[in-house]
């Protein structure tokens, strides 16, 4: 009778081969089986190889919208997640070091499955008070890293982009950009850029051409060269005084949307979406969709259809679908609604307790779940 071989005799490479063939949930759970498994699964090369074996079409990746809002009565910030999938339960996670009554954490930006957050003292605006700290977090794997203090403590608009190429075994690389508020009309604006490659903030100036501020223009700024690189005029049909405009990204292309309607009392309110084409040849906006509200139909919620055909419905664009070019997310009254632009159909996603914060889309973020959570380097891994 042979003595059974123990698992310790199975080399790490072959144990990995078994684990790669599990789904994300089971693999994450296996971190709790034994220490060796924890370190194996938390490693960078495991992440790369798991991702490669599970590579699936980016269009099918599950995703959620995160909506940041404040409960005015108790002055507490909340993060609403629009998906019920188990993986997304982790999205509201805050690292223990920032879990404190005096500290307020806000999501400032998102890219793929990473969030840029800011922790600051309650009562201060993000990035402006003393003890304001930015951090980048993967809420699924709970890996995170704090950024060094920024050059200027001021209210700012934040941007965040990241690159992670599993096929080439590269490490995560990201840039955080801050454009501190500036008053008046100026052809120059200050930019602060954090690069994960250098681990440092640098200050830079964005320069715009003459007469820039008198036209309604979009500026593209490249954090790698620290220069303004592209200038686009807004679409010709975009009415500068009509309705709220929303810029966003869908499947890698820039889109802009205008809803003529709320808060303006307009007959025949409608939703228009333009997409930017010929980016390298100066850029041209193409009207992709034009949808009149009274033509939109919701099969499951006939009351919604009815509401939209009434006078002056309250509709705002929350977000573009990150990969599906036919879908946008709207806020209609107190509901998040997915709208298929081609079929002109609507589907209620969830309810929201308050509408105030989302009209200008500042507090809405998209989160796309990859095959394996993007690993964040420079973070000491602990089993405790």
């Amino acid at each position, binding site marked *: 009778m*042979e003595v*059974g*071989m*123990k*698992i310790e*005799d*199975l080399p790490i490479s*072959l144990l990995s*081969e*078994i*684990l*790669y*063939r*599990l*789904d994300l*949930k*089971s693999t*994450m*759970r*296996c*971190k*709790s*089986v*034994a*220490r*060796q498994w*924890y370190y194996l699964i938390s490693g960078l090369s495991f992440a790369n190889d798991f991702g490669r074996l599970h590579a699936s079409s980016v269009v099918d990746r599950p995703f959620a919208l995160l909506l940041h809002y404040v409960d005015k009565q108790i002055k507490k910030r909340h993060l609403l997640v629009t998906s019920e999938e*188990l*993986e*997304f*339960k*982790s999205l509201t996670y805050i690292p223990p070091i920032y879990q404190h009554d005096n500290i307020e954490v806000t999501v400032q930006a998102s890219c793929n499955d990473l969030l840029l957050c800011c922790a600051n003292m309650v009562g201060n605006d993000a990035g402006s008070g003393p003890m304001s700290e930015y951090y980048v977090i993967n809420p699924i794997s*709970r890996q995170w890293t704090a950024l060094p203090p920024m050059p200027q403590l001021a209210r700012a608009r934040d941007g965040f982009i990241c690159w992670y190429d599993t096929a080439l075994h590269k490490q995560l690389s990201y840039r955080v950009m801050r454009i501190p508020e500036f008053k008046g009309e100026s052809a120059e604006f200050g930019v602060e850029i954090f690069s994960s490659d250098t681990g440092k903030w640098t200050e830079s100036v964005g320069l715009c051409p003459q007469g820039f501020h008198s036209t309604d223009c979009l500026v593209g700024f490249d954090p790698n060269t620290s220069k303004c690189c592209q200038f686009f005029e807004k679409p010709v049909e975009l009415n500068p005084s009509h309705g709220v405009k929303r810029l966003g990204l869908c499947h890698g292309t820039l889109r802009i949307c205008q809803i003529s309607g709320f808060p303006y009392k307009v007959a025949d309110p409608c939703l228009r979406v333009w997409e930017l084409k010929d980016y390298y040849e100066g850029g041209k906006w193409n009207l992709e969709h034009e949808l009149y509200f009274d033509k939109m139909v919701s099969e499951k919620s006939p009351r919604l259809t009815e509401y939209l055909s009434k006078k002056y419905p309250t509709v705002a664009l929350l977000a573009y679908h990150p990969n599906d070019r036919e879908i946008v997310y709207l806020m209609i009254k107190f509901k998040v609604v997915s709208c298929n632009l081609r079929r002109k159909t609507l589907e209620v996603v969830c309810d929201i307790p308050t509408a105030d914060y989302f009209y200008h889309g500042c507090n809405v973020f998209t989160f796309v779940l990859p095959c394996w959570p993007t690993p964040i380097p420079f973070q000491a891994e602990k*089993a*405790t």
Partner: protein
Amino acid sequence: MKFCTVKQYFDDENNNNVTNGIATTVIPLPNKHLKIKANNKEMEQYEQELLRNVMPQELTKLILAANYLNFKEALDFFCRTVANAIQNKSVDYVRKFFGLESDFEPGEEEKLCKEFAWSFEGVDED
């Protein structure tokens, strides 16, 4: 080539990686694989058979053998069989399957369970 390695194995007497019992399971596999490559259902049945008749330790030996023989299809098949056996199962089940014991400190494991709580939901009953 798969069959060259097999011959080499038989010539190598000091080989501890593959015992006779395993060799008799692995070696017929290429033929079986070629015959039923297109037929997923039969492969599934074979997989179920394996899981029923073969102990987990034997499965890990099969994996080692397939790896040593550089037999990629068999390696993929056996690894997937083991993965399917532990998919969506509890941590305790997985430990029992591999004959492992927890080597975490008392508080550590609880912390991990809390951190990845979402991954512990909807797990199959043992």
